[in-house]
């Protein structure tokens, strides 16, 4: 009797823990959408902000997020792929690989605000890149690098040895095997990781606080050396600065919706891509 009771209790707890997480997720999405949906319009997406951020659109913030993200991926993607190749294909000397792996794991556990301080001291001040798209993009690139490296390693390790053998037996050199056989096979997996990193970079606030973002700019960015508005920072600033919360809060929710949809779309495509890979490979 007691045994049965404990069994039911245990299963109820486990079931509840996932249900609570899911309920929170839906409640969360519902609340954000219901509070912000009324400000969403075509103008909201395509216009400049007006009247001290209390009216108008968030076009510059969308553009800023776009550019910062693009810069970070452009830097992190090639570095990440080559790093992954080194770790999984060359992997010698072992002590060096171990140090590199530890560094990557440590980087991925470092708080994002610390990346922000690093960017401030090295890129903004040290290299004199100022508060700019470039500084923010570089900072975010280092932040997302571990994700790209790890997904590259994982994808490369999933390439069956058969393929490598076949290519080697045809006289391919090591780099030819990697470029012609290993990478094409691993690419969907690498892209999945990269897409998730894009979502991460687009949503981060702390690393760009002191390196790229500005609350208000009157013009659109013209070069990588310009400071920009960005959606995540815009949400924060609207909630904590300015003097007209009754107008600012709905805009903050509207910005949150745009950012959420963007990121749900990005992560959704990564999940879908991975699902496709798994199906294809049976």
């Amino acid at each position, binding site marked *: 009797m007691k045994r049965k009771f404990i069994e039911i209790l245990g299963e109820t707890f486990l079931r509840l823990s996932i249900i609570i997480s899911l309920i929170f997720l839906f409640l969360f999405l519902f609340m954000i959408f219901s509070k912000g949906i009324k400000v969403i319009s075509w103008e909201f997406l395509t216009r400049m902000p007006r009247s001290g951020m209390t009216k108008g659109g968030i076009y510059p913030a969308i553009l800023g997020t776009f550019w910062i993200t693009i810069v970070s991926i452009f830097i992190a993607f090639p570095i990440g792929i080559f790093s992954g190749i080194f770790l999984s294909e060359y992997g010698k000397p072992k002590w060096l690989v171990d140090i590199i792996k530890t560094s990557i794991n440590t980087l991925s556990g470092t708080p994002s605000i610390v990346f922000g301080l690093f960017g401030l001291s090295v890129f903004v001040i040290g290299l004199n890149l100022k508060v700019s798209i470039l500084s923010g993009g570089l900072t975010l690139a280092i932040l997302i690098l571990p994700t790209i490296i790890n997904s590259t390693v994982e994808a490369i390790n999933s390439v*069956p040895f058969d*393929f490598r053998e076949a290519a080697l037996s045809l*006289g391919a050199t090591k780099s030819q095997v990697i470029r012609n056989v290993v990478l094409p096979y691993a690419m969907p997996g690498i892209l999945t990781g990269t897409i998730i990193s894009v979502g991460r970079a687009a949503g981060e606030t702390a690393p760009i606080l002191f390196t790229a973002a500005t609350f208000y700019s009157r013009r659109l960015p013209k070069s990588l050396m310009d400071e920009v508005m960005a959606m995540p920072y815009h949400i924060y600033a609207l909630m904590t600065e300015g003097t007209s919360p009754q107008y600012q809060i709905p805009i903050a929710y509207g910005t949150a919706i745009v950012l959420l949809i963007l990121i749900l779309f990005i992560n959704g495509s990564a999940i879908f891509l991975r699902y496709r890979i798994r199906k294809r490979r049976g």
Partner: protein
Amino acid sequence: MEELIKVKNLNLFFGSKHILKSINMSIYKKSVTAVIGPSGCGKSTYLRCFNRMNDYNGAKIDGEIMLDGEDINSKNTDVTKLRMKVGMVFQKPNPFAKSIFENVAFGLKIHGKLKTYEIENRVEESLKSVWLWDEVKDRLKESALLLSGGQQQRLCMARALATNPEIVLLDEPTSALDPNSTRKIEDLCLELKGKVTILIVTHNIAQAARISDYTAFLYLGELIEYNETKLIFTVPKDKKTEEYISGKFG
């Protein structure tokens, strides 16, 4: 018969394990040579000595394998050039996840000296030589993974033949195939031996008897007996050979 390869006193170790023990044998041009023996006797490892595929598993090798007057185990050997001369087909069909055309053209393209039309000709020639051309000529751009298992294995043969190797190594090429596809591969071996030397490892004794001119019996890393196939199967000199081919152990 003219000699293509001469194996002299070949030994192979994995760590402290002595896998191949002082093997001496000659492989003759434009013939089919079969290596038989119970599983675990080292026949696949032996086969992989001929294109240096043991470079990747930590094997230590001494002794010589002379091909065209050069020892392929020498430090100066360009392994990638060697593998153009020595093609290989594996146990499981392993076409790349590329188109049929790209699979066959792979070896030609990575060595990169041929013009497009030359590559096209060679691909067609290779596919014809494995009787696959008529089956795939209208869908060369399709993924090779859509082919059946038997077709895939013949495609792998075409891929190995495309670089005009002097010898093709077949590592139990029919063990993953159905009887029909198996027969096709066997017929193919008989057909091809006029053009290229074939060294085949098989656990199927009857297969060796059907297609090979010479048979080597390998047991626990030693070459027990090596002779013309018809002699091995009729008047084996060694008792072990006789027991093995009559199915007393396997």
